[in-house]
C-alpha cells in the first residue's frame, strides 16, 4: 500500500485558518464529498483551527485520507501545545462560552462530522480528531 499522503498546515496567525479551509475544501472536493458535506467539513475545520489560534496561539493541522470497512474518509487532526481544556465535559456541552460569548464550537463541530475525538491535558495541549466518511 502506498503511504497515506498527509497535508500539514501550521497555525501561526489568523490567516492560516483560511489556508486550512482551502485545503479541507480541496481534499473534500477531490474525494467526491457532496456539496453539503464539503461545507460541513470546511466549517468544522474552520471552527477547530480557530480554536488553536485563539486558545493556544499556535498549532498544527493535518489532513489525510483514511479507509475502514470498505469506506473512504477524510480525517483532520487539530493539535496544539496550548493550555489544554480544564473541563472537557463542560466544553462539549451546548451553550458553553468563554471569551466574548464565542464558545469553543466543539459540540457544534461534532455535529458536522461523523467521528469526533478529543484529547486534552491541562498544561500540555489538545488534540482534536475529526473524520467524515464518504457514503
Amino acid at each position: 500500500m502506498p503511504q497515506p499522503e498527509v497535508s500539514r498546515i501550521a497555525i501561526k496567525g489568523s490567516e492560516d485558518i483560511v489556508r486550512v479551509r482551502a485545503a479541507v475544501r480541496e481534499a473534500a472536493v477531490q474525494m467526491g464529498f457532496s456539496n453539503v458535506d464539503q461545507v460541513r467539513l470546511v466549517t468544522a475545520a474552520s471552527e477547530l483551527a480557530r480554536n488553536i489560534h485563539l486558545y493556544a496561539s499556535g498549532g498544527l493541522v493535518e489532513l489525510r485520507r483514511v479507509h475502514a470497512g470498505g469506506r473512504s474518509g477524510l480525517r483532520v487532526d487539530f493539535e496544539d501545545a496550548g493550555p489544554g481544556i480544564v473541563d472537557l465535559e463542560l466544553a462539549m456541552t451546548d451553550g458553553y462560552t468563554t471569551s466574548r460569548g464565542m464558545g469553543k464550537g466543539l459540540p457544534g463541530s461534532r455535529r458536522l462530522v461523523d467521528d469526533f475525538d478529543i484529547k486534552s491535558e491541562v498544561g500540555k495541549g489538545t488534540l482534536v480528531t475529526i473524520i467524515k466518511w464518504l457514503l
Partner: protein
Amino acid sequence: MTAFKVPILKVGDVLLVSIQADIDDRAVLELQQRVLEQIELTNARSVLIDISLLEMVDSFTGRMLSDIASMASIMDAATVVVGIQPAVAITLVELGLELKGVSTALDVDDGLRILKERMKEKRRKRTVGADEHATA
C-alpha cells in the same frame, strides 16, 4: 494573503455590502468597522449584506453578521442579510447558530423590498408618535 477589500456601495438609502469570497478573520473585523463608518458617513438608513457567494459561514462570520446588525441598529439603520446558500443554512442550523437578530431574505430584490417596508413602518410609527405628542 492579498489585501482584498469587500466592496461597499451606496444605492439610494441603502448600503450594499457584497462579500464575494472567503475572507479571513482580520478582514471580517475590518469589514465591520468599515460598514459602521460608512453608515455614519453616508447617513444610510439600511444595510444589505449579500453573501450569496459565500460558501461557508462559521461562528466567527455568523457573529460578525449579528454584530453588524446590532451595531447598525444602534445607529438607527436596519440590516438584512441575503443569499444564504442552502448548504450554508443547513450547516448553520447544525452548528447551532441561529443568527439572532439578523433578518434574512432570499436575494437582493427581496432584501430591498423588506428594507423599504421596514422604513415605511418606522416612518409610520414616528408619525403616529408625533401626532400623539401634538395632541397631548
